């Protein structure tokens, strides 16, 4: 009898796997593909839609989903094993791997205490100034070292301030939310600023190269997008203070306690300086050498240097790096490239254009609104990087200026303000248990309006100057 219970329980836990399998098998064997879609493209779409079901519902661990995407490309005859393997590992995956390891190396140095002291010196004790400082520092740092690194470093500072402001954070819910969201939204709006701000930016750059669209340098990316980061910072501060209304205007006592705690760390140590210098080298490598060597390779050089100088142990990197995510992005990019190679992306793009052109006359407006809407919505369900990996090939086939469409897509992938799953920084603050899902909605819609207007302003007034 227990065997039957075990089988029923397995079915209960794996129902989405079974649904995905039934869906995929039915489409492959019993449904005739559309006449204008070749069989390989049809199979690529089946794999990607099955993978989406599995990623969203997670009946399997992520690495298993990644492996599924890889072997299915060969099993269904979309491509050879060697080609699938070559698409799986590329500079974008190197970058994701390198940046995850760099995050571990940087966070383990304990630089967060220096950062806390620096911010407090800059902002003083007034709550609004601290919220502004948190937002600005998170945005600017995240644009270079990635939002998850910044959120991991800033969270203890934010939570410690909250704890010193009141022993029960629920009694200062407004202050808590304002401080934590200033970290999360600050890091999110900053993550679009440079290619190294997030894996999704590099995935888009990789697609441009793979699809023969062209290349964009680190500085060029900044030139196109950084104004939007700077523009959004003050408005984000206003939105947060307006939405959450902190209970205390002045955090005098909390700041003093924080300074005492941080001061225990003593003077900046040699290894901390070394960590900063090494990251500066990586940054200069990204700015000046990435066109020749690739962003991913430079990130890996950085990891090598951190290991060589003994600033981080391999065991620590190995333990704290999420290898499953690296596998997943490798697999998602490989299927993304197959979507382009087989014509599946073009087919979806054509379908979108032919259906929506009846509603929207202007091709530019149509291309822009589809890429932004599709990416923005999917980011809130899936995650920003996974969205770009999946949606990227489709939006690049919508027509128009593929570089600008790519920029718009990468920017829109950071519009994940509504849920905790969209951006790593949002997940990190949500996991504290001190902010609720409805807080994301309360502030999120205002942030979405701000970001869409900012992107529109950028596309209408700034990009024409540069093109």
């Amino acid at each position: 009898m227990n065997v039957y219970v075990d089988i029923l329980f397995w079915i209960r836990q794996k129902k989405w796997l079974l649904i995905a399998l039934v869906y995929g098998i039915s489409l492959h064997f019993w449904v005739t593909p559309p006449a204008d879609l070749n069989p390989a493209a049809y199979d690529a779409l089946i794999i990607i839609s099955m993978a989406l079901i599995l990623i969203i519902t997670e009946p399997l661990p992520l690495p298993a989903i990644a492996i599924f995407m890889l072997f299915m490309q060969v099993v269904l005859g979309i491509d050879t094993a060697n080609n699938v393997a070559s698409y799986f590992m590329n500079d974008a995956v190197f970058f994701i791997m390198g940046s995850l390891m760099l995050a571990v190396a940087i966070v383990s140095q304990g630089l967060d205490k220096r950062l806390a002291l620096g911010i407090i010196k800059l902002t003083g004790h007034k709550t609004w100034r601290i919220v502004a400082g948190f937002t600005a520092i998170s945005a600017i740092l995240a644009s270079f070292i990635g939002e998850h690194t910044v959120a991991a470093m800033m969270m203890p500072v934010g939570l410690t301030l909250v704890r010193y402001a009141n022993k029960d954070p629920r009694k200062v819910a407004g202050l808590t939310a304002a401080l934590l969201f200033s970290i999360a939204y600050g890091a999110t709006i900053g993550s679009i600023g440079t290619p190294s701000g997030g894996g999704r930016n590099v995935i888009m750059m990789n697609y441009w190269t793979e699809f023969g669209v062209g290349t964009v340098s680190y500085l060029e990316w900044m030139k196109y997008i950084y104004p939007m980061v700077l523009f959004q910072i003050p408005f984000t501060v206003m939105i947060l203070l307006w939405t959450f209304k902190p209970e205390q205007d002045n955090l005098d006592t909390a700041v003093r306690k924080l300074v005492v705690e941080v001061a225990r760390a003593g003077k900046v140590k040699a290894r901390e300086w070394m960590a900063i210098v090494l990251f500066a080298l990586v940054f200069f490598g990204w700015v000046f050498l990435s066109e020749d060597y690739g962003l991913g390779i430079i990130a890996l050089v950085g990891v090598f240097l951190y290991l060589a100088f003994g600033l981080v142990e391999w065991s620590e990197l190995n333990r704290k790096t999420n290898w499953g995510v690296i596998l997943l992005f490798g697999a998602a990019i490989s299927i993304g490239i197959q979507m382009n190679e087989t014509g599946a992306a073009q087919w979806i793009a054509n379908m979108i254009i032919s259906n929506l052109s009846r509603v929207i006359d202007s091709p530019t407006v149509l291309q822009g609104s589809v890429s932004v809407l599709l990416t923005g919505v999917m980011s809130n369900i899936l995650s920003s990087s996974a969205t770009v990996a999946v949606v990227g090939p489709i939006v690049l086939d919508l027509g128009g200026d593929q570089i600008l469409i790519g920029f718009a897509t990468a920017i829109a992938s950071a519009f994940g303000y509504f849920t905790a799953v969209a951006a790593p920084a949002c997940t990190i603050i949500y996991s504290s248990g001190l902010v609720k899902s409805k807080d994301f909605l309360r502030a999120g819609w205002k942030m979405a309006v701000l970001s869409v207007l900012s992107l529109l302003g950028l596309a209408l007034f700034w990009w024409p100057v540069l093109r």
Partner: protein
Amino acid sequence: MKFLLAISSSKYSGPTLRAGAMIAQAFDAELNVVYVGAKLKGLQEGPLDLSRENLAKWNIYHPGIEVLKWAFQELKEICPANDELKSAEFNPEHIKEDQNRYKLILPTTKGCKVQLTLREGELIQELRDELQLDDYALTIIGGSQGKRHMAHDLIQYLPSSIFVARGLDLKKKYKLLLLVDDSEATKRSVTFGAEIAKTEHWEVRTLTVSKTKRFGRGYSGAAKKAKAALEKRDIPVEQFFLTGDPVTTFVDFSGDDHIIIMGASTANPLKKLFFGSKPIKTLERSTVPILIVK
């Protein structure tokens, strides 16, 4: 003997924790208090782990540890006999990661042996995984399982007896209501009930329900045996024989001052999934604490 007690929060789990500790003391059983927190999606795990490790350096610990800390403080009050526990301090650094969970073993003495465990994920899956790590006789859980199918999932998939402390008020004087029929599980539920009744000095009633006016040999025999077993342990018992739909009768009779004890159904799991069973339906419909013995 080992019991598992699932708590959800300091706000709602107080009575469950107290009842669980009381029952564990009655059986001199070891108690594993488990808090199952939400698990975020795999895509977010990496950054989240990094953030949590960094937070720990600032003495800000894993979410859920505050619930274990609350449970620890409560247990110190509930188990005054445990001197070692009384003098112990809660230290999050003593919580060790082990087999996909976080575990804190507290000082143990006879009568109140406690372990605290933190798990993350889906409730039924996590409780089932925890139960499979050791030989647990009973799972104690609070009564806020509002989700559809929860009654079925608890009874069907947890491989131990289950006590659902729904609406439990420890200041109230409860009577134990033993539901007696000719099933194998009735014997075990009588033994279980007798143990609790003896320790807590609660009144015991047995209820046998037949769909027809005639009570077969099996039913009357089982009722006789139950009475004999209870009286052998000097527990006075009042017996009731009613006719009607069993589940409706159980629910109506139990009112709001009984704790129901009944045996689990031995029907085919597939049948239980589609058509339910008496314990599943009783758990769905009743508002009083209920113990289902497997």
